[in-house]
């Protein structure tokens, strides 16, 4: 019996406002509230809300026979909470049906997996906590930013306790093999891999409304027939796409909602099931181990990380913030922590790409900037200010270890003062006692007893 595994990605970055070099050191608010509000509200009303309503309808009609998975970045959740709270309600309603699974990812949709393992772990934890808080689920399957994946990431993800991960079925990795199987990681054999079926996914997300495509118009029965016609042993079809496909990339007028709505009916006719990534792990057996020595992703023609790290500008812009990563994690300042998250979003680096061919048009389509150079300048100006703030809290001359020790002292100092106060009190009492009693000398004994009891960090 064949199975379709649907997974939708929702992510929006906090776009930066026009931040001039005059502002460095003077203005510590970096975000273009107007644009962020406008964009998320528009997309929510064109896509997220109607699509959620549609999925809820389908699930009401087909019950547990229809299932989907979502991966929602922390920054997107924050914006939705702030600007479109009704979306959170409708998502909670979906979550309550039991047909929806939430995936794990980095909180900030960041590139930390490539640059800063500690930050990576911290962000995944932060994200999963947020998902649990909102939807009451503990994610079991991991999906990295833009499906970036390699052997090192596999080891980290596996070490965090995830049993499965999602990535792209890139041709240069798969070669002759088909993405329609469950694989496992060569570096971390316990980690199972679900690979995106690019052809069938892109048929929906990119080609659905293309008049020049020979398969236009794409109907649900035709699409299900294609899946049914796959070779007998290929049982798993992973359809991974941005949630914006429904209503934004493919506007409602193209009939995309009706298409999705009709899928379960034709799937049932052909005896095709819907599964979530978590179920795939239990129901399928991996057929082979995949080794991915160099990072791959689902972006651009090259399916590698060149969309964010292709040029010197991007490499510099990515490396700079992570050079102070450890420092920032020592910080207690909530504001700094928040900015740190927002500034890590991979989108900022995506805008800096200087690719000029067809990939370039994709980059500039999403970019709020006129040119990659403006994107770089603006980001670096913001980052300069951010770094001076971190520097102001913890001067760069003090190295991290020394700082750590000092911080521990500060953290414990309250308890220590309390202990010492108690000691003083005790001695005072003794002194009082002594004047009324006999000799004060032997009261020294209880003094060394209450020392450092707590040690957290």
């Amino acid at each position: 019996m064949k199975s379709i595994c649907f997974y939708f990605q929702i992510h929006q970055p906090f776009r930066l406002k026009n931040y001039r070099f005059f502002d460095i050191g003077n203005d510590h608010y970096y975000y273009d509230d107007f644009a962020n509000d406008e964009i998320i509200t528009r997309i929510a009303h064109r896509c997220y809300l109607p699509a959620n309503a549609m999925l809820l309808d389908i699930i009401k009609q087909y019950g547990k026979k229809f299932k989907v998975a979502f991966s929602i970045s922390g920054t997107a959740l924050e914006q939705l909470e702030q600007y479109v709270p009704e979306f959170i309600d409708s998502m909670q309603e979906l979550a309550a049906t039991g047909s929806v699974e939430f995936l794990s990812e980095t909180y900030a949709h960041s590139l930390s997996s490539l640059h800063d393992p500690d930050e990576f772990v911290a962000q995944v934890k932060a994200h999963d906590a947020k998902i649990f808080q909102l939807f009451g689920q503990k994610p079991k399957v991991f999906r990295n930013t833009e499906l970036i994946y390699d052997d090192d990431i596999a080891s980290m993800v596996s070490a965090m306790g995830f049993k499965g991960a999602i990535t792209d079925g890139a041709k240069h990795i798969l070669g002759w093999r088909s993405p329609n199987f469950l694989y496992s990681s060569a570096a971390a054999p316990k980690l199972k891999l679900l690979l995106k079926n690019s052809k069938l996914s892109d048929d929906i997300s990119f080609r659905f409304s293309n008049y020049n495509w020979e398969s236009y118009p794409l109907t649900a029965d035709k699409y299900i027939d294609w899946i049914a016609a796959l070779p007998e042993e290929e049982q798993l079809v992973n359809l991974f796409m941005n949630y914006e496909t429904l209503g934004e990339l493919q506007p409602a007028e193209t009939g995309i909602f009706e298409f999705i709505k009709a899928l379960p009916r034709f799937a049932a006719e052909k005896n095709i099931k819907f599964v979530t990534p978590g179920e795939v792990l239990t129901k399928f057996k991996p057929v082979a181990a995949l080794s991915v020595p160099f990072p791959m992703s689902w972006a651009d023609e090259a399916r590698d990380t060149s969309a964010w790290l292709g040029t010197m500008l991007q490499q510099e812009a990515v490396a700079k913030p992570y050079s102070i990563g450890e420092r920032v994690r020592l910080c207690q300042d909530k504001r700094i922590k928040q900015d740190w998250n927002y500034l890590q979003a991979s989108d900022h680096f995506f805008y800096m790409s200087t690719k000029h061919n067809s990939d370039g048009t994709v980059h500039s389509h999403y970019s709020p900037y006129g040119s990659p150079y403006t994107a770089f300048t603006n980001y670096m100006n913001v980052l300069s200010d951010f770094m001076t703030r971190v520097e102001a809290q913890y001067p760069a001359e003090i190295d991290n270890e020394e700082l750590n020790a000092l911080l521990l002292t500060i953290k414990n100092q309250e308890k220590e003062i309390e202990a010492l106060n108690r000691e003083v009190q005790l001695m005072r009492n003794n002194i009082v006692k002594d004047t009324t009693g006999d000799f004060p000398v032997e009261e020294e004994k209880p003094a060394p007893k209450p020392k450092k009891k707590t040690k957290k960090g």
Partner: protein
Amino acid sequence: MKALMFGWEFPPHILGGLGTASFGLTKGMIENGGLDITFVIPKPQGDEPKEYARIIGANCTPVVWRDVDYGYVEHRIGNVMHPEMYYSLRDHIYSDFGYIGTNDLGCIEFSGRYPDNLLEEINNYSIVAGVIARTIDFDVIHSHDWLTYPAGIHAKQLTGKPFVIHVHATDFDRSRGNVNPTVFSIEKDGMNQADHIITVSDLTRRTVIDKYRISPDKVTTVHNAVEPLSPELLNVEVPPKHDKVVTFLGRITMQKGPEYFVEAAAQVLQKMHNVQFVMAGGGDMMEKMIRLAARRHIADRFHFAGFLKGKEVYEMLKASDVYIMPSVSEPFGISPLEAMQMGVPSIISKQSGCAEILQNVIKVDYWDTNAMADAIYSILNYPAMYNELREHGLAEVDQIRWKKAGAKVLDIYRRLIG
């Protein structure tokens, strides 16, 4: 195929970009092969490169018959052109031009610059063109810029050969819209009479179509290019410097937008102090700019280097960290390409023609001094930005060759000749 070209400037004696572009194009066309070019200029000095075109000086072309012996002609103009040419030109004098005033060889004197009696000089140039067109054999006429349009029209009327004009600039660019009616009418006349019009950018093409009301199918854009620099120029020595240098190179006139550069400099200096701003060139707005710099209290960091020529230009570029061209209207603008060849990151206005073909530069609106200041600050402060623009700029400008531009012009010739 033989082409008769009329130009006003030719290296090494150049006053602006026109001479550089005319020469580059000539060379690029010859490199494609199958072409002979005769290039007419008002006043050759004799040290012009002769390997790509046969040079005829308008001031060496007799319009009044004088009986002079071979030795004397060779003595007078031998360094410019062959005496035999003088004699064959002399055989084609077509009218009596004694009233104009000629020298001992029967030639009209030219300044070869842009004098006050420019219109008279243009007229004389077209009289000379009549003699030349009667003398030499050619298949196509090619006039560079409005000064030589009347000469080209004259040659076309005489011979009926196809006439191409090359628009390096229009008066709309030079005057920010306040066109000189006389210049406009000469330009318009040239465009009407031309069989084909070549513009140096799509920006100029639009001006020709919209402002001069020329049919679009008669106008083709052939972007300018640059010659690879010699190793000697690439490796010029410059004294060590302590401060960053931001450079503006060009005539200090309304067209080049110098005031925007001063305003942007004033902004950058509010935040940084180890920067020097240099404005190299001369022009009618220079004093105004000096006063503006003083009014913004940045005179100590803002320098006027005067007109630079030859090697000095490359020394200045070599010493620069940023090159800026904030032109209000620039038909093409070769200088940023030269800066890129020297590895200097460039900021150019979106209103310049070269912005159409350059990718690895920062483009801003000429009036947007905020964006300009941001870009300067970014290049000076973020090494990745500097390196990216520098290295990709070098690679990019390497691909912009005159040979390709020459091939496009040859295509146009072939279509016209049939």
